[in-house]
């Protein structure tokens, strides 16, 4: 028996990889429905946007890359639907070079669904390098940082940008963040200085680091990882006036459930084998 217990503890990791692969693939091939509760932090994001009157501008900073798309893309898409359906006028920026090719086509595609016109109903200012310096400049003087939008149209000639010269001219800022620079830098650099209202979505791995900001009121809402995205998607899809869209967060939740269960099972198995073998050796 001791031999088997030692074998389990020293199991070839390829078996673990295979088990993990099955835990990921099976829920994708055979999706199942799971009921889930809405996190108050995610409800706060939804309520903050709902509380804005029609025509309000929102600054959206989309800072993620393809590797964080499974966690943040469902939120980003749902957020686009939410804003356009609520007649909110988003102004998009990005601090990550890999985000621009992802977000721009999606913004244009979903804006077309709601018959929104670029320049009047939404603006994409583009990508700027400089990380925290860009954020600092967004706080102080947006036209100085973005004299033109991504098409080369001067910001002074864009109807939507009239009167939007600083971050505090926006009643709400949304950060969709996968790392540095992102929400953390918005909070550090400009949230306190200009007393801004910021909500955001982040990956699960950085979620625990943002909870203190939510607790202290520096963040007014927070969506963490796939569960947050799925909850927000469901809220938005039930809103009147939203065009139907496929909820991608749900299938991610299935995979998350199975893979978490698998890891917990592995941990328990390893510990059981460890303790029993320790007892047997002592005897």
């Amino acid at each position, binding site marked *: 028996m001791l031999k088997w217990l030692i074998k389990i503890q020293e199991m070839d990791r390829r078996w673990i*990889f295979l088990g993990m692969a099955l835990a990921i693939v099976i829920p994708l091939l055979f999706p199942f429905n799971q009921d889930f509760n809405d996190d108050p932090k995610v409800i706060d994001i939804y309520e903050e946007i709902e509380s804005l009157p029609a025509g309000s501008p929102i600054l959206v900073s989309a800072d993620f890359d393809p590797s964080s798309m499974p966690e943040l893309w469902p939120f980003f898409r749902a957020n686009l639907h939410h804003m356009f359906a609520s007649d909110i006028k988003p102004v998009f920026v990005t601090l990550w070079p890999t985000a621009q090719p992802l977000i721009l086509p999606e913004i244009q595609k979903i804006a077309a669904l709601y018959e929104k016109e670029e320049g009047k109903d939404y603006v994409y200012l583009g990508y700027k390098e400089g990380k925290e310096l860009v954020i600092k400049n967004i706080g102080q003087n947006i036209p100085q940082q973005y004299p033109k939008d991504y098409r080369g149209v001067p910001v002074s000639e864009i109807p939507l940008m009239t009167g939007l010269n600083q971050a505090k001219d926006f009643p709400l800022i949304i950060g969709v963040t996968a790392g540095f620079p992102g929400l953390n830098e918005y909070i550090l650099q400009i949230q306190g200085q200009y007393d801004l209202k910021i909500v955001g979505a982040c990956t699960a791995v950085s979620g625990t680091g943002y909870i203190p900001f939510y607790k202290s009121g520096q963040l007014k809402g927070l969506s963490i990882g796939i569960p947050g995205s799925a909850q927000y998607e469901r809220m938005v899809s039930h809103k009147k006036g939203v065009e139907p869209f496929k909820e991608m967060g749900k299938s991610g939740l299935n995979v998350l*459930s199975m893979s978490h269960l698998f890891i917990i099972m592995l941990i328990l198995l390893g510990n059981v084998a460890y303790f029993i073998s320790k007892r047997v050796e002592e005897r």
Partner: protein
Amino acid sequence: MRTTLPLILSFLIGMFMLGEFFVPHWRYQMVKGFILEFGTLLASAAFLLGIINLIQVNLPKIKNREKDWGYKALMLGSMVITIIVGLAEGSHRMQAYELATVQGSPTEEIQEIEVDESLKIMALSTPEGSEMPAVAIEVSLPLQADQEGIKLAPDADPRFKLTRRKIPLNNIDKETSGGTQDNQIIQYTLTGNKSIEQIEVLESGGASTLMMPRNRPSIRKTIAYKWIFDRIFIPLSATMFALLAFYIASAAFRAFRARNLEATILLAAACIVMLAQVPIGEQLPFIGDYLAQFKEWILDTPNVAATRAIYIGGALGAISTGLRIVLGIERSHLGGD
């Protein structure tokens, strides 16, 4: 002079930027904005420096055929191609949508379509002969019924065509939904003419994406930069990150052993948070609600306490290091001794 001038500059600029929070005068803020602009210029220049450094480090290794020189050559070649393609295509490089051949996407069965409804679709369209990138359009295609099933009404947009075929029930999964007539499923295919690509059904009384015809020929020029990003960068980037899941599972199995009290507490907290974070944990009978509450407590109390301590400690360290750099005490960033 080599170190003195940078030290003087660091001191002057650092002290000026510190004053930002204490001097609200508009002239002060204007100069601050000017300095920040220079900062973003420097950051952009750092990109160029990075590229030059990459070439400087890897090109000699390629020339000397050192270990893994092939990968280094591939990396430099990819970088050069992407830069050239991006520069050549200019501002249009990211506006294009899908391109090249639209292969038959995984087929989905159409559910029954109510005759009185129309097919509401979204498609990408470029007028024939135009060089502009495709734009999204929304079209409503009225439907009518006949003996065979559903078809487009005569006044439907002439750019679209709805064809149908019958598939014997024993050839497909019996659990897929669809209207059946005499043990058959009628499968509908919506296609567009040369100016249309990528059709997506938005609304049709429950129907989902229609089957696209296979081997549809390419109908417009390829936007190479977007192709490189969509077909190479996105899959590779996602794959590299996806590998983490497997290594985390392996590491968790090997490392998470309850060898002492602290390790046991860590283990228990990790398992509770992992389980309660997913719906399956929340829905467990008897303990589901308590698990969720306990998870919230772990995240809201000990986690917040520890994270705040780390942030405050980090901030104090950053203040200390920043002051040392501004005052010239710390000179490691200047290089040399």
